[in-house]
């Protein structure tokens, strides 16, 4: 395993009597990592600690092996797209990007070229770039914020709710851009509520609730470790009742629910702690029952259900 890009050792952040991040110890590896949690879980505070915007009340946070707090040099290697708007509203996107370029060290023509290029990449139309930011829609503002985070070619990109306000096409484009950046070796930490888009981007997640890390790692491994929450397997068949009789005889099946879909089609929802054994036995049972299996799916082997299980605990 490569050296972690980011690490936190016993990091806590208090606001008076309120604990926003509580004794977090973790390592984040290169690639895309999603930071998930309900409102108030401490996602933005954790991002603030990771980007050196916030000083940990206790503990240590490091990026690229160096303490991040009070280390502005590391900002050359880090890009941050805030959740909230932070522009000079009277500027156009081009002026804003050129200004940010110059702040980060680009000069003259290089600043102009780089600003135009990054605005192209985030998909801000040329005619929109020359309007004042105050006239922008939420999606255009989001693209401009993303552009300012990308403009200095950071190795590590932090995105706080980057998809907010984007239309479906915009979300798709930004997802593709992020995937492309990750493939080219950029590391990205995304904080978001939109779970299915995170699933499309990455399997690496960090689940937060009440300032603590509830789970970290690969989404499927996390799901597998939740033994107290049986898997749900959905089977659509023309002979669901016969299948249900056979399945309930299996030790590892704890419950079976039948739902009528059409006159000759029913759906079975099988609850089990051993999904692998169910998948092994299903063809055999189907053959015995003379059933035709139309569809098999795992509705809770996804991020949303893992999220619900963990946060609901």
């Amino acid at each position: 395993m490569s050296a972690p890009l980011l690490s936190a050792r016993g990091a806590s952040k208090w606001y008076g009597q309120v604990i926003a991040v509580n004794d977090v110890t973790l390592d984040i590896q290169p690639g895309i990592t999603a930071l998930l949690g309900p409102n108030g879980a401490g996602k933005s505070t954790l991002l603030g600690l990771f980007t050196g915007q916030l000083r940990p009340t206790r503990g240590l946070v490091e990026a690229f092996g160096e303490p991040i707090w009070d280390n502005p040099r590391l900002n050359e290697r880090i890009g941050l797209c805030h959740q909230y708007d932070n522009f000079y509203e009277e500027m156009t996107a081009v002026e804003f990007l050129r200004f940010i370029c110059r702040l980060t060290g680009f000069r003259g023509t290089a600043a102009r070229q780089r600003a135009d290029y990054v605005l192209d990449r985030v998909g801000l139309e040329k005619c929109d770039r020359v309007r004042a930011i105050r006239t922008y829609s939420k999606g255009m503002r989001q693209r401009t914020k993303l552009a300012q985070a990308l403009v200095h070619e950071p190795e590590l990109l932090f995105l706080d709710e980057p998809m907010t306000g984007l239309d479906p096409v915009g979300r798709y484009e930004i997802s593709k851009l992020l995937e492309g950046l990750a493939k080219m070796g950029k590391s990205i930490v995304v904080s978001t509520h939109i779970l299915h888009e995170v699933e499309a981007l990455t399997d690496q997640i960090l689940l937060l609730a009440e300032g603590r890390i509830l789970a970290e790692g690969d989404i499927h491994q996390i799901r597998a470790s939740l033994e107290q929450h049986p898997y749900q397997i959905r089977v659509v068949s023309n002979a669901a009742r016969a299948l249900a009789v056979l399945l309930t005889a299996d030790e590892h099946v704890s419950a079976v629910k039948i739902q009528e879909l059409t006159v000759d089609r029913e759906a079975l929802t099988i609850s089990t702690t051993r999904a692998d054994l169910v998948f092994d036995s299903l063809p055999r049972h189907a053959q015995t029952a003379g059933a035709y299996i139309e569809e098999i799916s795992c509705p809770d082997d996804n991020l949303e259900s893992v999220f619900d299980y963990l946060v609901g605990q």
Partner: protein
Amino acid sequence: MPVYDQSYRHWKGSFRRSPLRWAPMVSYHMKHLMRSKLVWFFLLGAFAPALGAIIFVYVGYLEGPEVLSRAVDVLLIDSLGESATRDDEYRIMARYGMLSMLVFPQSFVVLSITSIVGSGLIAKDIRSNALEIYLTKPITPTDYILGKLAVIAIFIFLVTFAPAALVLLVASSLWEGFGAAALSVTPALFLACAITALVNGSVILGLSSLTKSSRYATVIWFAICFVSQATASALQEITREPMWQVISYRQNFALIIAEIMGSTELPNVVVSDPPHMGIPIALLGFATLTAILVLRRTIRAVENA
């Protein structure tokens, strides 16, 4: 037909970590502020005394050196005596001219331009969350403060040093032998303007960092300037003690600038019975340090919000 790579292109160049990395901030604010008619009004207004001085210089050039001698006699300096040389007259004229342009007519202009330029510099960043953008870029809080301070310094130099330097330049070119006097007064002039910029700039930025509204910063700024002035005047009237003038923010500047410009050679020009110079220096130094501490604290507070 070639097919070009449409994927993301990495920046292959290098970044130069310049010690002037706050300069883009200055150019942005200058561009933005120069759109204001009020700023132009004060900038042009600041040149009015200089224009008067240039007319005097030109008349002196046309009429001959006697005009200058008469003006010196009339305006101020009986103490030079009969033995005063032309160089003495030039030197005193340069210092008196600069002092009278810096302290008296320019005082209100300096306070106004400081307020117009400085009151929104940080308040606006706090209001629009732009401060967070700065702090995610490779600039330090000190760079940020320097950038903002430089904006105010430029405007203060434009209303103090620039008109004074223009008069010196015109006088040097028209009056033979005035160049040496102009050169001797220039460092003092620069120092006086720099102190004005540093102290006023720090205080207005400190006030600006305490609020999201530039209006509040402006109100507090003028309150500090005029309430302290009124209090000082009232106490001086009541007690007949000139030491109370150090309560006045503006008067402290007048005292320091007069000292820098050599007011000892200019009897009755600025103040009578000036207090020990350490007092106004200590008071303005304290104001500057307090303002910078407030500024740094505000920036850190944003980082820890």
